[in-house]
């Protein structure tokens, strides 16, 4: 796995933290906005991992 993939995994992980939310929260889909962000970010991160495994993990059988 190249440096590029390591960076993707870490940048995505960094983005799962709700850094951008300050002060009072708003209600979105029955959740505080930052809570909804964290939940969706976690789901997207899981999908990204599954995608990366599929695309970049070349097994000995594949090779």
């Amino acid at each position, binding site marked *: 796995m190249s440096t590029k993939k390591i960076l993707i995994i870490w940048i995505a992980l960094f983005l799962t933290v709700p850094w951008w939310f300050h002060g009072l*929260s708003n209600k979105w889909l029955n959740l505080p906005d930052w809570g909804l962000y964290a939940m969706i970010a976690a789901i997207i991160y899981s999908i990204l991992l599954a995608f990366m495994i599929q695309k970049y993990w070349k097994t000995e059988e594949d090779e």
Partner: protein
Amino acid sequence: MNSQTALLGPGGITFLGVYILSLILIGWLGKRARKENSLSDFYLAGRGMGFLVLFLTLYATQYSGNTLVGFAGRAYREGYQALVLVTLLSSAVGAFILYAPKLYRLSKKYKFITPADYIHFRFNNNKLTLFAASLCLMALANYILTNLKAIGYIVVSVTGGVIPFAYGVIALSLVMVIYETMGGMRSVAWTDSLQGIILMFGVITIFITIQIEYGGFEFIYNAIQTSDPQKLAPPNFTQKLSWFSTVCLGFFGISIYPHAVQRIYSANNEKTLKRSIQVMAFMPIITTLFMVVVGLTAFALFPGLDRQASEGATLLVLKDLSQRGAIGTGMMVLFLSATIAAIMSTVDSALLSMSSIITKDFYKRFRPKKSQAELTRIGKMISWVIMAFAVYLAIVLPQTIWRLLEIKLELLIQVSPAIFLGLYFKKIKAKSILWGMTFGTLFAVGIMVANKLGVDIPAKPGGLHAGVWGLIINLVIVFILEKIKLSPDE
């Protein structure tokens, strides 16, 4: 407690008892499937695990009793900030992507049994190997002890105290050590498969039931807004740093739990491993997230509980659902089985891993001429000794010492540079890794112990966990030693 407060009646308890005893039968089947009397067969199921068993054992091992009980309690206390726990478990899968393919190929070629086998192969330094193995052992021992304590409390809750804490711990530990020593990893993985299915089914069912019965996120949001609107506020900067620090702990700590590494070694081929880890990427969503929602529901229903009472958040929701008639005895049995399954599948795996580390990394290193059959027999004896000692400590250890047992990932995370840097940087030297590991561990443990003993040092200086600070120091030392070529290996 008396029998009137028991979570289950005699029928439910009998069913649960039959389920637990059936694990011994599975253990016996695992023994019958043994192919040879070797360490590889006993500790890695002959490196022959297929997709379903590998995935379920990875799942059941990764999600312990803490997921079902502790995570809900944390969600109760921290509110939506407990969503970090979902990413905590996902980050471990991210780490698998980085190291599992390379490590798996090496393990197949050089027949590794323990994580320290790789470290010895890569760095060829006895001090480093033994230090890394010792850190793994300490983390696993803490893991076993805290889970044994949890299992004792569950037994007391289920039976309303008819079976006391100590008897519950002894009985379930006995079941675990019997099936573990009968068939080793094969028995553990097969029982994990059953336990994993029950765990997944239990969590999904409880999540769906509370959505239907209480109204899901809308109910939770409105209740929190009324009782404690502060919990709706976004985390401040220090809390955000702590959030990221937690994720780092998962990435470098949870991913290298020795029993997880040994499951990577156990795959029958790389494609099986790849598919299992791919499915594992989604498990935090349908397990951790669901349990966080259970904890939030408990807060919405019963606000104002103290820390200790909030640890029973899951059981409170279950009791409430039962009183409302939303769930019957069957569902209660299912969820309690899932909780016990989660704990047992983690303890048995950690026990097997400890036994393998003591046998392979310590005993065999000093008795290299022992045969595989003898080592396997000694490994089994070690399992019994560890379990007996763990049971004794779980029953008698004073509360002040229990606080120190929370130090697990803080220790394990210091081993991660040996694995990650070892795999990716061919020129890195043993001495650099050893010094980094030593100072990182001393720093992390120093902060943790001082904090838990009441010294005025925060557990998370600047928002970062002590273990993460230790890892930073660890990596800085490795970097400096490599840069200035102070390493005596040069």
